[in-house]
């Protein structure tokens, strides 16, 4: 579905992605884990077309999207749930969702709108309850649901999520990961960037570890959970202390 080869990207003189190759197959949950500043968000932003790729290929469903503007990438079926949710706080929940269906308008498929809303409300009943409320008045968890719902309104085949658990209470984080799992069960494909590596690897099929703009490990989520480097660096296990006991 998504195939990336030797991607390079950055900001101004700063090279953030040095050489990234990865792929996502249909129906998979793939997670990218890594420390702050490793290049996770840059990677998602480059795939989304928010940042232009400097070199390499991004192929989505057989089409090269590396130099495509963001709106065209969304139109092809690849949506981003951005870091920090970024809902339009002075608009209502429903208006936020309708904005997510902007591509349906472009396709002259606005009659699909009620069905899209129904689907999102089915997934997140709380959004239906707060339909007329301003997005800025929602709790963090609700805003995250709204951000996911907004992305789903574009009927994407690939949903990319940037740190959906960030800043949320542990119980809410659990809900968010349950939603990701449910999205996959309903046939969606998910590319998930997370600092909460343990939770992400538990729901993912495969994972990549990114460090200073390069992939240093890849494999099944199960193998990555068993990898000592991953445990030490990203799962917060102090192996030295454990061996002493």
């Amino acid at each position: 579905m998504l195939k990336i080869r030797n991607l390079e990207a950055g900001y101004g003189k700063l090279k953030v992605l040095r050489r990234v190759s990865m792929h996502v197959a249909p129906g998979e949950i793939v997670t990218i884990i890594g420390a702050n500043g490793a290049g996770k968000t840059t990677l998602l932003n480059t795939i989304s077309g928010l940042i232009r790729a400097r070199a390499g290929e991004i192929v989505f469903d057989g089409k090269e999207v590396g130099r495509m503007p963001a709106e065209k990438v969304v139109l092809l079926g690849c949506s981003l749930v951005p870091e920090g949710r970024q809902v339009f706080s002075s608009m209502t929940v429903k208006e936020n969702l309708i904005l997510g269906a902007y591509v349906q308008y472009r396709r002259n498929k606005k009659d699909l709108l009620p069905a899209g809303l129904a689907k999102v409300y089915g997934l997140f009943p709380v959004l239906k309850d707060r339909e007329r409320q301003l997005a800025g008045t929602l709790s963090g968890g609700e805003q995250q649901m709204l951000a996911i719902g907004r992305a789903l309104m574009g009927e994407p085949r690939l949903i990319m999520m940037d740190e959906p658990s960030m800043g949320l209470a542990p119980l809410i984080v659990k809900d968010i990961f349950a939603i990701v799992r449910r999205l996959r069960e309903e046939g969606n494909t998910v590319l998930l960037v997370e600092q909460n590596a343990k939770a992400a690897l538990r729901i993912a099929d495969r994972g990549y570890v990114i460090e200073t703009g390069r992939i240093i490990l890849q494999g099944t989520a199960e193998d990555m959970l068993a990898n000592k480097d991953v445990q030490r660096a990203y799962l917060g296990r102090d192996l030295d202390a454990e061996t002493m006991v």
Partner: protein
Amino acid sequence: MYWEPENETMKRDEREQLQLERLEATLNRVHMNVPFYRKKFDSLGIDTDDIRSLDDIRKLPFTTKNDLRDNYPYGLFAVPLREVVRIHASSGTTGMSTVVGYTKNDIKTWSNLVARILTAAGITKDDVIQIAFGYGLFTGGFGLHYGAERIGASVIPISSGNTARQIKIMQDFRTTALICTPSYALLIADTIAEMGIGINSFSLKYGLFGAEPWSEAMRKEIQDKLKIVATDNYGLSEVMGPGVAGECTERNGLHINEDHFLVEVINPETLEAVAPGEVGELVITTLTKEAFPVIRFRTRDLTRLIPEPCPCGRTLRRMHRVMGRTDDMLIIKGVNVFPSQIEHVLFDIEGTEPHYQIIVDRKGAMDDVTVKVEVSEPIFFDEMKKQNELVDLIKRRLASELGIGVGVKLVEKKSIERSEGKAKRVIDLRKI
């Protein structure tokens, strides 16, 4: 039957993407964690970020057995020792041993890859497998053992040696699959015949043989004598051990586990890639090893890749059975000669046994080769004339196969030392 159908029948372009991802991650890791590779790449001015395709691997330097020896014992490990759960050492057939390590994930991968090879060879969980490879530092025994357990077969870890006991256990335990070197399989077959036991009193169905080069003629002989389906498999401890490649029941080349190993075939003299399908030295880069990754390891094994698809449905490319070793390659009177060529000729000649030895010496400035061949008993009682005829026939056939004349000496059956492990086929007495 496949063990990991998705990986074994993956489309070519999907696998190439996977290989590239894994190659790049491996290069990033060795550059970070193995000073040997970092220094070598840096001193050659190689930036691993410039490796952007599978073919780009040709920009990287080779790793040789000597590099492994120079970094004895742990110098090339890419993880700290506390993450290593197993240590093996190469069998050291030719020289000092080299040490390799495995993480928990490596052992899991290894078991799965051996399970693939066993499954491809026809083995299932219902089989009783007698593993007559040496257990210990040699990777053969343990490697196959873990793979056999992985598929759920019943494993008899008998290890090598004590042929009479092997045969008794094979009979009593109703062994259905034998795993050892091909030369040892032949020794077992001959011993069974000598003991006068009918092969039909055994339950053997399959044999998986490896760890040394053997010929198609030898396969035929083993299959006929033991009444089994005999498949070839390939591996080497420096890269992982058994599980690198193995034949399916088509018995027409060994499927390489390409999602875990990137292979190249090079001309051992020019070090350039040979044309597709041509014979050369196999070079392997590991794509998933954690503890002991190797980059462009020169195996010294001679083979060629078979690009045509296999009827079994696996998309994993095949390699021809190993034709010899570059260091077994004898340069006689300037001509490259492989023991396997000689073996091939002998198998086709009536009256000879599949046991032989090649003795190379120097007379004056000239290389002199004598092939000692065991003959079946009756011929020694026959008249001299028949013996001479046989010698002439072997000489003629060898000359046409090798392109040089060699001496032939007939010896009595069993006068050449038998091996329970790897057979020693060449004795080079030349002092240059």
